[in-house]
Structure formats: structure tokens, C-alpha cells
């Protein structure tokens, strides 16, 4: 997608330089002054090699930048692209509708399902409306309502995780943020339908897990999942937020780490450079995984789905 060129991140600077050179050579070539086709092809192939090299050697701090990229495909984009029909349903029936979590019922071919996802915005205005994807308790209670609906009508649940964390604010505390998350964790263990979750960007702590106690969990290649943001960790343990890159290394938050630790079941490859370079292709990859897993999990009995999920989370832990 050559027209779609996101703003380069710091580690992409060498690529941006080469691409600029290619553009100017192309311009020269078009002016007809000399034939530069070979040179252009040569630099283009070098640029491609460079990209592959850079994107396969990203530090956790670089990956976080991709995971948080404003152009990264968000839950609503993916839901609307993946599902034939997505009917958004609103509200927790207790207090209000939280725009940081989107949810509803969807169809995908013959498959019917319930969808829940954190919703970030792609610009400042949207982000203010979506509270940067940081839900209040009513967001988690809306999600709980959707999970109950799914369980009642035997519909599988698909969730997309993409949040810096549950909102740490005055009213969120007053209305019971901790209780709302805890209740979801407890309820998700008892659900009799398949739950398949994807960390599509940022998996921020309890706020992520609150919709992520799943039979199958996938990490997009450049997504991260962490007990605390590296910035938060650095400011608590080092009393210095600038130590965040070091904290990011220590916390083991990349897709590779999360799979190695046995928390996630697989990594979904992203288009070169990140999902935001080709959101449609990313959606397609997620879609085939949903189709495959719901097909497999759909054959299991409700009891075995529950037992499998319980056993999976029960065995997490390292001790002597």
C-alpha cells in the first residue's frame, strides 16, 4: 500500500531515508533525463532487505511503539472488516455506556458470535471520546452483560484486547473498578461457550485480562501484554520513567515472550512493518484464525470447554 505511508517511527528512519531516495530517483527518471530503472530496482530491493532486517530485530521498546501506533487497526475497524454483519450493542444497564469497550453480536458466514473489544481512537478527538481505550467499570460490566448473553444463547465469544489499562481515575474507583474486573475474571472461567481472544495492540494489565480469560489467546506479532506498563514499572521500581525501555526488556512483554511463557497459544504474523501498513490483510489473518478455532472449539462439549479453560489458567505459575 504505497499511498498509505504512516509517519515513520525513530527506528524506521533508515528506511524512510532510502524511500525518499527512491522517490527522487523516480522523479528524475520520469523527467526522462536518464534511465534509472536498474538503480531504482536495486535500491528498492535493498530497502526491502533493510526493512526485513529492521523489523525482525526490534527491541521491546520499538515494538511498543508499533503496538501503540495511532494508525494501527482498532477493534471497530477489524470487527467491521472481519464480520459480515456486526450489530453493536450498548450499555451496562447499571450506569452508562462506556465507549472504551465496544461489543455486540456478529455473523461470519454461518458462524454466529458475540464480540467484545477495547476501542482506541485513531486521532485525538476520537481518543478523547474513547478515553484512549481505558475502560471504566461500566465498560467491564457491559462486557459481562455480553458474556452472559453469549452463554445464554450458546454463542462463542471473540474478544480483541487493546488497552493501556483500566482507567485509574476517581470515578472509576468510586464505581468499583476492582470489583468489575474481578467479577469478569470469575465469570469468564464459568462460561460454557468457546472464548477466543486476540491481543491486537496493547494488553495492559488487569484491564486487558478483564476480557481475556480465553480458551485460546493469540498475540499479533507486534502486540504486547504486560502486568504493568513499562513506564509505570520504571517509575515505581527505578523511580525514573526514562528507564522504561529497560523495564520493557525485563518484563518480557513481546509476543514471542508471551508464547514462550505459555500464556498465548500463537503469534499472528503482521504485514511487514506492522498491521497499520496493511490493515485489510491483518483482518484477513485474524479472520481465518477465528474461523479455524471456532470450528475446532465448537465440536467440544460445554463442560470440556469450561474444564479446559479452568485447567489452562490453573496451571499458570512458576515456583519451587
Amino acid at each position, binding site marked *: 500500500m504505497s499511498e498509505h505511508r504512516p509517519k515513520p517511527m525513530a527506528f524506521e528512519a533508515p528506511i524512510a531515508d532510502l524511500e525518499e531516495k527512491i522517490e527522487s530517483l523516480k522523479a528524475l527518471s520520469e523527467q526522462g533525463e536518464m534511465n534509472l530503472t536498474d538503480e531504482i530496482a536495486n535500491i528498492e530491493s535493498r530497502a526491502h532487505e533493510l526493512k526485513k532486517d529492521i523489523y525482525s530485530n526490534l527491541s521491546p521498546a520499538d515494538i511498543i511503539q508499533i503496538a501503540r501506533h495511532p494508525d494501527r487497526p482498532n477493534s471497530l475497524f477489524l470487527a467491521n472488516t472481519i464480520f459480515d454483519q456486526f450489530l453493536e450493542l450498548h450499555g451496562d444497564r447499571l450506569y452508562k455506556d462506556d465507549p472504551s469497550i465496544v461489543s455486540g453480536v456478529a455473523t461470519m458466514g454461518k458462524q454466529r458470535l458475540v464480540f467484545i473489544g477495547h476501542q482506541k481512537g485513531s486521532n485525538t478527538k476520537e481518543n478523547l471520546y474513547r478515553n484512549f481505550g481505558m475502560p471504566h467499570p461500566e465498560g467491564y460490566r457491559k462486557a459481562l452483560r455480553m458474556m452472559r448473553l453469549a452463554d445464554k444463547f450458546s454463542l462463542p465469544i471473540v474478544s480483541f484486547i487493546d488497552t493501556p489499562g483500566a482507567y485509574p481515575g476517581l470515578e*472509576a474507583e468510586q464505581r468499583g473498578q476492582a470489583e468489575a474486573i*474481578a467479577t469478569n475474571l470469575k465469570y469468564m*472461567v*464459568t462460561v460454557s461457550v468457546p472464548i477466543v481472544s486476540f491481543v491486537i495492540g496493547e494488553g495492559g494489565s488487569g484491564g486487558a485480562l478483564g476480557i481475556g480469560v480465553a480458551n485460546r489467546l493469540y498475540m499479533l506479532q507486534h502486540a504486547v501484554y504486560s502486568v504493568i506498563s513499562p513506564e509505570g514499572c520504571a517509575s515505581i521500581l527505578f523511580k525514573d520513567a526514562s528507564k522504561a525501555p529497560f523495564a520493557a526488556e525485563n518484563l518480557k512483554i513481546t509476543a514471542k*515472550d508471551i508464547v514462550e*511463557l505459555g*500464556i498465548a497459544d500463537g503469534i499472528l504474523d503482521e504485514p511487514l512493518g506492522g498491521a497499520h501498513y496493511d490493515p485489510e490483510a491483518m483482518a484477513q489473518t485474524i479472520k481465518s484464525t477465528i474461523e479455524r478455532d471456532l470450528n475446532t472449539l465448537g465440536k467440544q462439549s460445554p463442560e470440556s470447554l469450561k474444564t479446559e479453560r479452568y485447567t489452562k489458567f490453573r496451571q499458570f505459575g512458576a515456583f519451587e
Partner: protein
Amino acid sequence: MSILGWFAKRDRIVSRKKAGGQSRLDIPSDLWVKCFSCDATLYLKELEHNHKVCNECQYHFRLSPEERLAYFFDSESFVEHYDDIKPTDFLNFTDTHSYESRIVASQKKTQRADAAVVGTAKIEGLSVNVGLMDFAFMGGSMGCVVGEKIALITEMAIENKHPLVVFTSSGGARMQEGIMSLMQMAKTSGALAKLSEACIPYICVLCDPTTGGTSASFGMLGDVTLAEPGALISFAGPRVIEQTIRQKLPPGFQRAEFLLENGMVDRVVHRKEMRSTVAGLVRVLGGGQ
């Protein structure tokens, strides 16, 4: 006086002492303590007799698991279980110190393997399963050992049909165990879901402080949730919230009484009423025979 104010004052007294000057109270410090809250000078023996509650202002000092067992449960009734589970530095985590050295230091300080103690005990003659947290061990943080012990004592409750009573005191998930600490939230909540299905009562007592991953999992899942007076109970800590909203929090925010007012806990219970309240709940909700 705030706790920070108290620390500042204590530091001044200590530095005066070091400089050879007379402290304001020239008495052996192992006999007397100052109340963190009202500054009253309290005779240690009397304070202990009072379940470590200041008799001037009713400030509840933090308790160790042993003190809780002594104050609230029938004497000699506690049998510890799963005390052989030990933490490990499986991520090779290093901040200003290695996690490994933090574990060793905390073990030396508290004389226990990790931040939770679990077992069986009796309260007014009723058998219960008990979980207790020790804030002195890395801020009572929940890593894999704490998660495992809470899950095990919950599963034991399903087997022996004893009501489960947990006293929390924890800053939240243990950062040094990364994502695996986060998973302990789902693990403990899952075990409690099974306990619920078995219709065995779970009474959770939130003690100072209970925040983060601990409050957002087994802390807030009690059939009945009690809290000690003045306990800080929250999801996000006050400092994080002040940074987010960029204003001072109102007095009493996130304290036990605030949660009671907002419908988040059932009762705020003074320590001298704790034993009879928990036993009373066990008697009504069933089990424990």
C-alpha cells in the same frame, strides 16, 4: 498526621538522636510506640493487648499473619499447609536489585517463603480454611506463590467443605514475575468460581492496603466483604490517580469507609469485633461444622 508526616517526624527524631541530642521522649523504643495517625505515645504491651489498635484514635496498625491468627482465631487451632512452596526468579528480573536478592532479603526479614500463609483453623469453634497475607514481604505482592497458595486453600475448601476466610494486605501483582503474576488473578478467581459453584461461603477481609491485582481478583470476590477501619482499598493507587487527574484526592478517598458508602464492602469491622463478626457470618452462611 499523615503517614508521610509521621515518617518525616521520626526521621527528625532519629537524626537528633544520632547527633547526640536528647529526643523528645527519652524512653526505650521497644516499650513504647507512637501512633502513626494521632502521634499518641502508646505502651507496647497495652497496644498488643488492644489488637494493635490505638486506644486514642482507633488507628489500626498493620498486622503480621501470626498476629491475625492470635487475635481472631482459636488458640493453637491453626495448621499451616503448603508452606514448602517457594518463589523463583524465572524471568531473571532486575531493577535496582535483582529479584533473587529481593526474595532473599524478604525471606530473611519475615522468616517465611513468600507473602501468603494458608491453612486450616477454628474460629469460635467453627472450622475454616484461612488465607493471610504479609505486607512485610515485598508489599504483600501477588506472584505465583501467593496465587498458587490461595488457589490451593480454595480447592481444599471445596474438598473439606470449610468456609474460606481470607485477610488481604497487598500492593497488587508482583512486577518481578511479569505476566505470570497477572495470570494469578485469573487463577485465583477461577478457583473461587468453583468454590461458588460448590456453595461454600467465602468471606474476604480487606486490610490495609489492598490494591491493584489483589483487589481486582480474590479481594473483591467475597460472598461477604469486610474491611478494617481506615484500610486503603483500591484498584489504582492514590499516587497514580493524582497523576492522571492532576488534582489532590479528597480526604478519606479509597478508605474502607468510602467503599462502604459507595456500596463496595458489606461492613467496616473494628478489630475487637472481627472474631465475632466472621464467626457470626460463618454460622449463618453455613459450613464449618
